[in-house]
């Protein structure tokens, strides 16, 4: 190694040091601390701190409320990501064909994406109002109690979440569409390929990579989602919209069980990291990330 290489290596480490120290304190340390917390029975209001090993995890294994929250999280994630990806790709295709007003179209979409999730929740709370909500009025004056009916609350929350996050999928898919060279389509036309054949054999395969990436990001986000259900339903009615994040939050800051709540948080952590790893591997195997 030459003196110059050594010097730029030293420079590199010096430039990285402050950021890495900060990240160590703000992410790595809490990431490890939460594992330790989850092994404790910890109730600060009573000054209780007691090591109990895997006690919380054993309890969660047979806690019906935990399994119900896990089911809700799974349902929420699968349905909202699926709907977003399908609608998002369709919209990206429509926008690509757009000759005029594409900028305006994106503005209308990005409006939904830009707002804080808390605002989305307030918007939809008003739209779902049983008697004065726009949705019921448009449905021929029904009086559906969207957020109060255990059968409707989760679909209502999913609809609000899809509205907010679908534009992200459209933007990614549309950007990918723009990079497909027009020659490919001209060649397909010369070969006599119809519209559907072109879509199926050219466009969709070329999109699959970015759609996977978008689905990855959206799945991670959906598993972590908190704001939208916390503000819209608070986990109710009858816990039908209580996801793992809501259960964790209620345990942490309403029941003040810091150890128990942390254990649920650790499980969400594990789920998110497992999904991140799975998708990256999938992308890798397809030769997309290497």
């Amino acid at each position, binding site marked *: 190694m030459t003196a110059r290489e050594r010097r730029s*290596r030293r*420079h590199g*480490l010096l*430039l*990285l040091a*402050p*950021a890495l120290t900060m990240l160590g304190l*703000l992410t*790595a340390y*809490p990431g490890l*601390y*939460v594992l330790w*917390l989850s092994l404790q029975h910890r109730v600060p209001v009573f000054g209780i701190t007691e090591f109990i090993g895997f006690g919380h995890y054993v309890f969660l294994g047979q806690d019906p409320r935990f399994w119900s929250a896990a089911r809700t999280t799974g349902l929420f994630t699968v349905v909202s990501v699926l709907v977003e990806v399908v609608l998002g790709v369709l919209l990206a295709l429509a926008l690509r*064909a*757009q*000759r*005029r*007003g594409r900028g*305006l179209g*994106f*503005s209308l979409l*990005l*409006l939904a*994406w830009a*707002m*804080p*999730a*808390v*605002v989305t929740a*307030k*918007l939809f709370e*008003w*739209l779902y*109002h049983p008697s*004065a909500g*726009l949705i019921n009025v448009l449905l021929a004056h029904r009086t559906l109690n969207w957020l109060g009916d255990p059968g409707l609350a989760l679909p209502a929350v999913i609809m609000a979440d899809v*509205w907010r996050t679908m534009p992200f999928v459209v*933007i990614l898919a549309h*950007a990918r569409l723009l990079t497909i060279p027009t020659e490919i389509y001209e060649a397909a036309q010369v070969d006599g390929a119809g519209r559907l054949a072109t879509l199926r054999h050219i466009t969709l395969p070329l999109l699959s990579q*970015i759609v996977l990436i978008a689905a990855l990001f959206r799945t*991670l986000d959906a*598993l*972590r989602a*908190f*704001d939208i259900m916390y503000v819209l339903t608070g986990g109710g009615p009858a816990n039908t919209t209580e996801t793992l*994040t809501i259960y964790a*939050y209620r345990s*942490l800051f309403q029941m003040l069980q810091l150890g128990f*709540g*942390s254990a*649920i*948080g*650790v499980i969400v*952590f594990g789920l998110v*990291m497992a999904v*991140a790893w799975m998708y990256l591997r999938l*992308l890798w195997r397809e030769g*997309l*990330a*290497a």
Partner: protein
Amino acid sequence: MKHRARGVLDILVLLGLAGYAVPFFWQLLTSFKPEAELLRLPPLLPTQLTLDHYRVVFERSLVPRALVNSVGIATLTTLLALVLGIPASYAIARLPVPGKSILLLAIVGSTAFPQIATVSPLYLILRELGLRDTWTALVLAHTSFALPLTIWLLAGFIRELPPVLEEAAQVDGASPARMFTSIILPLLAPGLASTTLLTFLFSWNEFLFAYTFTATEASRTVPVALALFPGVYEVPWGDIAAASMLVSLPPVLIVLGLQRHFIRGLLAGAIRDSWESD
């Protein structure tokens, strides 16, 4: 003929998208509706428009104070992330740091950390430091996601710049610091702009940390003020609508005003790092 069909389709798609944005416009309309007409539907349109709800929000709610908190916290978070993130991203993009790819993977991975897992340790740490209900607490908590995002995005933008210029400056004997400020920084401006706006936006919109680490109007941000918007006897839908509009104004202006930059910035990290081959 074909052109006309295309034109009709263009209009249909735009109409569809306008329909998509209805929840927003409905809230906007609600914020100007007289109280008496709020719960009466139809008619869809109000007989007159009023500023009453905005007056209530400005004169009798915590939203104005929360707006100040949010501007301060989002600005400081963005600054801190830039000050720490610019040198770090340069090192990752250009210098031969050992274990660089693992490091970048860890940084990208930490953007996926669920807040619900780190909220309890951060709560205890901040309480230990006596920082509960302060701007500092939220700036630090928001930096935990703003910093990795900044490093990731900026490293991508720097890698995109041609290294020839830096090599030439080195031959001319420019110091590394001078080379960075006079050559890289100007070229990096667009990337820097989108990174800045994204971190500002994420800090502005963040709810879970802001809700947990604050207790009073001393540090409550706008999403928290909106979530806790008080109603005495019944829900003040009009006031909530007005507050929603005020809270969304900065992010909506940021995103729409700089749409082009912004989409590129959003894509920069997401696409490049996953399908480029280095």
